[in-house]
C-alpha cells in the first residue's frame, strides 16, 4: 500500500476523516469520475451486468444466513491452539473477514494496561482526547435514515 502524501497532515480530528462527520454538505464528484467509471467497465458491460445479477442473488442468500446467526458467524481462535485453529478456520475467516483471537495476553496483564494508562493520563493532564459534537448530528441523521431510499 502506498501513500503519495508523505508530508504532514492538515489539522483536524477524527471527525474530519469521514465526510458525514465533517459538517460539510457533500458536493457531486467532479466529471472526471464519470469518465473514470466509463473507462473501468468499457468493453465488458455485459459481463458487468451479468456479474451484478449473480452478486445480488448471492448477497440475498448470504444476508439471510448472517441475519439469523448474527455474532455466531464470527470465527473464534484460541491463542493456546493458534496454528491449528487458524488453519482449521481458514476458509471461514477468509469469508467473514474478521475473527477473535482469545487469550493472547493474560487477562490480568491486559487489564493492568488500562490502569497504567489512566495513571499516565492523570500525571499528564494536557493529554488530548477526542470526542466530537458533530458526531451527535451524524447520529441523529443516521437514526432517521434507517429506511431505504433510492438514489
Amino acid at each position, binding site marked *: *500500500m*502506498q*501513500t503519495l502524501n508523505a508530508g504532514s*497532515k492538515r489539522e483536524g*480530528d477524527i*471527525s*474530519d*476523516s*469521514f465526510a458525514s462527520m*465533517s459538517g460539510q454538505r457533500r458536493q457531486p464528484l*467532479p466529471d472526471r469520475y464519470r469518465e473514470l*467509471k466509463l473507462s473501468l*467497465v468499457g468493453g465488458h458491460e455485459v*459481463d458487468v451486468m451479468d456479474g*451484478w*445479477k449473480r*452478486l445480488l442473488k448471492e*448477497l440475498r442468500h*448470504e*444476508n439471510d444466513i448472517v441475519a439469523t446467526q448474527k*455474532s455466531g458467524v*464470527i470465527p*473464534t481462535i484460541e491463542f493456546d491452539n493458534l*496454528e491449528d485453529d*487458524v488453519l482449521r478456520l481458514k476458509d471461514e475467516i*477468509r*469469508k467473514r*473477514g*474478521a*475473527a*477473535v*483471537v482469545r487469550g*493472547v*495476553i*493474560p*487477562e490480568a496483564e*491486559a*487489564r493492568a*494496561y*488500562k490502569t497504567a*494508562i*489512566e495513571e*499516565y493520563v492523570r*500525571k*499528564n493532564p*494536557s493529554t*488530548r*482526547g477526542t*470526542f*466530537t459534537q458533530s458526531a*451527535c448530528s451524524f447520529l441523529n441523521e*443516521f*437514526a432517521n*435514515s*434507517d*429506511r*431505504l*431510499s*433510492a*438514489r
Partner: protein
Amino acid sequence: MLTLTGFPPDNPQVIELYWSLPQLQARAHPNLARVQKALMQHLWHVSSPSVAIDTSQPLVYADRLRIRQPGDAKFALGPHQDGGSVERWEHEGYGRGGVYDAVFAGNWEAYDPWDAAGRVDAVNDLHNGLGACSMFRMFQGWLSMSHCGPLQGTLLVNPLLRLATAYTLLRPFFTPVKGLDTNAVDASQRDAFLDPDNWVFTAGEETTSELQGATPGHGQEFPEAMHPHLELDRTMVHMPHVKPGDFVIWHCDSESFSSTIHPLILTSCHTAIHAVDKIHQGAADSSVLYIPVCPVTEHNARYLVRQRAAFEGGTPGPDFPGGKGESEHVGRPTRDAITSAEGLQAMGLEKMVFGSDAREGARRAVTAANAVLGF
C-alpha cells in the same frame, strides 16, 4: 479535540496517546507478534513470488487507544471502510496494483481479497485524507483491555467481505428503475425494490460521476440508503463478547463500526465494512488498544522512519493530527522499555533480520526496509 483536565470526567472516547508504556509493551508482546505472524502467513498469500513483501515478521503501526465509559455516545462512527474511498476506483489508486480488476471485469468471483501482490503497489491516499493510514495494514485490530460484548461499545462488522467489497465497487454502475417510497416501507415493497430486475446498468450518457459513499480525502462510508442490497440493518453483526487480552481483527476492506445507541453505526482499515455501537449500554468501561497487523514492505519502512522520529520526540504518529503530543509528558517511556530484539526491529529501532519467509520477494523487502531505515 479537547484537553483532559481530569480523568475520567471529560470522558473522551479516543485518547491521543501513542507512546504510553502499555502501548509499547503490547505492541512488542511476543504473543501478539506470534498471532500477527500466523494471521499474515496463513490467511494472506502473495500470488507473485517476486513481489517485495515479508509477512513473517510484523511491523508496528502506532495508533491510539480508546477508554470509553458506559452510556456515552459522543463519538460514534457509522459504517465505514478505512484505506481511502475514491482510490478504490482510481487507476492511480488501487488500480496501480490491479487489486479490483476482476470485479470491474464483472468476474467478482475471481476477486481474491487475500492476495497481497497487488496491494503492495496500490495507493490508498491520493487526496491527503485525514486519518488515512499510510501503512499497508493486512488487518485492523483491537487488543481489548476490558470485558466487552454486544451493545457494550464493541465493534460491528459486515461479515461478507468479498461480496460487500464487490457490491460497493459495482454499485455506482447501477440505478433502480423504480425507487422506494421512504415513508411506510413494508417488506414486499422492499423486496420489489431490491429485486435484481429493478436495477439497470447506467450506460453511456446515463453514467454520472457518483461513487456512492466515497468522498475524496475522506474514508468510505455506507449511508444505508446508498447500498441497499448490503441490508446493513440486519447484516452488521457485533463481535462476540471479549475479555481483557483478547485480540479482535478484521480485514482491511471490511465494513465496520463500534457499537453504542443504535446498533447500527459501522467502523473500518483497507477494510471490511465495520462500525462501533452508538450507545454503550454496558456497566463497565470498554477499553481497547488499536493495534493493526502490518507486513514488511519498503513503503511501510518509509513510514517507520517517520514514526521512529515521532517516538523519539514523543510526538503523535505521523498519520495523525500533530502538535506536541506526549513530548513533555512525565513518565514517557524510552526505547529501554522494549526488551526484545523483535520488538525493537518492528519499531525500526534495530536492523531487521531475514524472517522465516524464504521467498525471494521477502528477502528483498527486508533488505530494502533496512536500507530505508539506515541499517
